[in-house]
C-alpha cells in the first residue's frame, strides 16, 4: 500500500506546480455552465415551476455539480496513458515493476483529481451563488456527508475508464469506446437527473454508472435524504467491487495476450 501512497504523493506534488494550467480549464467549464444556465432559464417558463420534482435552482445546481465532477475528474492518465502504454509497448516494462499496473494508474489519477476537483468545487460554489443563488433548503453539513460519495463516484468512473482503455490489449484504438462511455455519462448523466426520464427507463439507468458517478453525489447535494444517502453509498460500494473485479480480470487476460504478442 505504501508504494501507492508514494506514487499518489509525488503526482499530487507535481500537480500542485500546475494549478495555473488547471485554472485555464475554468474557461471551458464556465462556458458550458453558462449554456446550461441559459437553457434551463428558458425551459422553466415561470418561477416556481417544477420539472421532474426539481425547481429551477435545484436543476441548475444539479448540472453544475455533475459538470464539476466531470471536469474535476478529467485526466489523460486513465484515458490516454493506459492506451498509449499498451499500444506503444511501454506496458512490457511497467508490468515488471513491483506494483499492479491498474492500481498504479489509480494512484496517479487520485493525485491528479485531488488537486483539480477541489479547485472546480470552489469555482462551482462561486458561480452558483452568484448566478443562481443558494440551493434551496441546503445545509452545509450535507457537504461533509456527500464527500465520500464523490470520492467513490470519481473512483468508479476511473475504474471503468481504465477498463475501457485496457481494451487496447485486443483492439488498436480504444478511443471510440471511450467516446461512447463519455457521452453516456455526459448526455444522460450530467445534463438530466434520472427522474426526468420515462418511468420505465429509470430502473435501467440506475444500473448504469450514471447513477453512482454523477446522479448520486449531485442528487444528495441538491436534495439530501438519509435513505437516498444509504442507497447510493451501497450502490457505489457494489459498483466499485464489481468494477475492480472486471478491471483486474481484463488486466490478467490482457497480460496473457501481451505475452503472446511479445509486447
Amino acid at each position, binding site marked *: 500500500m505504501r508504494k501507492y501512497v508514494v506514487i499518489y504523493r509525488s503526482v499530487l506534488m507535481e500537480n500542485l506546480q500546475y494549478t495555473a*494550467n488547471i485554472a*485555464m*480549464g475554468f*474557461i*471551458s467549464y464556465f*462556458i*458550458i455552465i*453558462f*449554456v446550461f444556465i*441559459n*437553457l434551463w*432559464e*428558458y*425551459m422553466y*417558463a415561470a418561477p416556481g415551476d417544477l*420539472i421532474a420534482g426539481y425547481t429551477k435552482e435545484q436543476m441548475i445546481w444539479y448540472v453544475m455539480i455533475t459538470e464539476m465532477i466531470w471536469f474535476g475528474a478529467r485526466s489523460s492518465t486513465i484515458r490516454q496513458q493506459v492506451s498509449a502504454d499498451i499500444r506503444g509497448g511501454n506496458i512490457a516494462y511497467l508490468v515488471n515493476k513491483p506494483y499492479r499496473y491498474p492500481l498504479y494508474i489509480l494512484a496517479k489519477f487520485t493525485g491528479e483529481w485531488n488537486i483539480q476537483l477541489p479547485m472546480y468545487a470552489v469555482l462551482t460554489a462561486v458561480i452558483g451563488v452568484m448566478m443562481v443563488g443558494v440551493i434551496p433548503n441546503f445545509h452545509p453539513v450535507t457537504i461533509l456527508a456527500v464527500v465520500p460519495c464523490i470520492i467513490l463516484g470519481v473512483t468508479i468512473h476511473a475504474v471503468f475508464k481504465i477498463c475501457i482503455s485496457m481494451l487496447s490489449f485486443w*483492439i*488498436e*484504438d480504444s*478511443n*471510440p*469506446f471511450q*467516446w*461512447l462511455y463519455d*457521452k*453516456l455519462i455526459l*448526455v*444522460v448523466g450530467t*445534463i*438530466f437527473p434520472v427522474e*426526468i*426520464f420515462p418511468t420505465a427507463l429509470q430502473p435501467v439507468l440506475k444500473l448504469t454508472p450514471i447513477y453512482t458517478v454523477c446522479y448520486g453525489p449531485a442528487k444528495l447535494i441538491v436534495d439530501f435524504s438519509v435513505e437516498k444517502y444509504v442507497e447510493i453509498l451501497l450502490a457505489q460500494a457494489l459498483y466499485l467491487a464489481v468494477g475492480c473485479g472486471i478491471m483486474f480480470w481484463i488486466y490478467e487476460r490482457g497480460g496473457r495476450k501481451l505475452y503472446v504478442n511479445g509486447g
Partner: protein
Amino acid sequence: MLTAVKNQVRACVLSVKYNIMREMLNKVTFLTNILFMMLNNATFIIQWVILLRLRDDVGGYTMREVMLLWGLAASSFGLARILFARVFSLPDLIINGKLDSYLVQPKNVLLSVMTSETNTSAIGDLLYGLLLICIFCFRVERFLLFLLFTVTGAVILTAFALLMGSLSFWFVRAEILGNHMVGSIVSFDTYPDGIFKGVARFLLYNVLPVGMMIYHPVHIMMEFDAAKMLRVFGYLFVLSAVAVFVFYRGLRRYSSSSLMAARM
C-alpha cells in the same frame, strides 16, 4: 499564375488523399473511428427528445431545426478536421519549432501546414451531418444550401482556429486560451440561439464566429434571406484575411528549434 494555383490545389488534394490513405492502413480502426463518431453524435438526440418533451420548442427551435443545427455543426466541424486538422494543433508546431519542414518546401507554407493532417473520426462527423439533413429535413434546395454552408462553416472554423493558433507566435500560453475559444464554439453551436439573450447573444454573433458559422445559415435554410447570406460571406472573407495576415506576421517571429524532421 493559374498554373501555380492549379499546382498548389493539386498538392493540397494529394496531401489530404495521402493522409486518408495512411489512416486507412488499419481498416478496422479506420471504420470503427467513423462509425463510433456517428454513434457518439447520435447520443445527443436523446437530450433533445427529452428537452422537447418538456416544451414544444427550445429557443424557437423544434426537433427539425435542432437536427438541422446539429447536422450543420457536425458537418462543418467534420469537413474542417478532414481537410485542415493541423490548424487545430498549430500551437504545438510553433512552440516546439516544428514548422521547419514546411518552410523548406517549394509550396505555400500555410496550405502545406493546414493540409498535413486528417482526423479520421471527422469523416464520421461529416457523414452524420449529411445523414441528419437527409432524414429530418430534406429538400433539394435546402440540401444544396446545407452543402454550401458546410463549406463556409468549415472555412470560418478553420480561420478562427488559425487566428487563435497564430497567437502562439507571440504568447507562450496562448494555445490554452485558443483551445478553449475554439472548444467554446462546439459548446455553443449545438444549442439554439434563441436561449441566449443580451451580451451573450452579441458575443455569439460578433466575437465568437458561431452566429455566422451556424445560426445565420440555419435561419437561411429555414427561410431564405439574401442579406444574411451576404453577411455570412462578408464575415468569412474578412475573418479569413485577418487569420492569414496574422499567421504570416507571426511567422516572421518564428524561430526554429533545429529539430530534425521530415514530412513523409
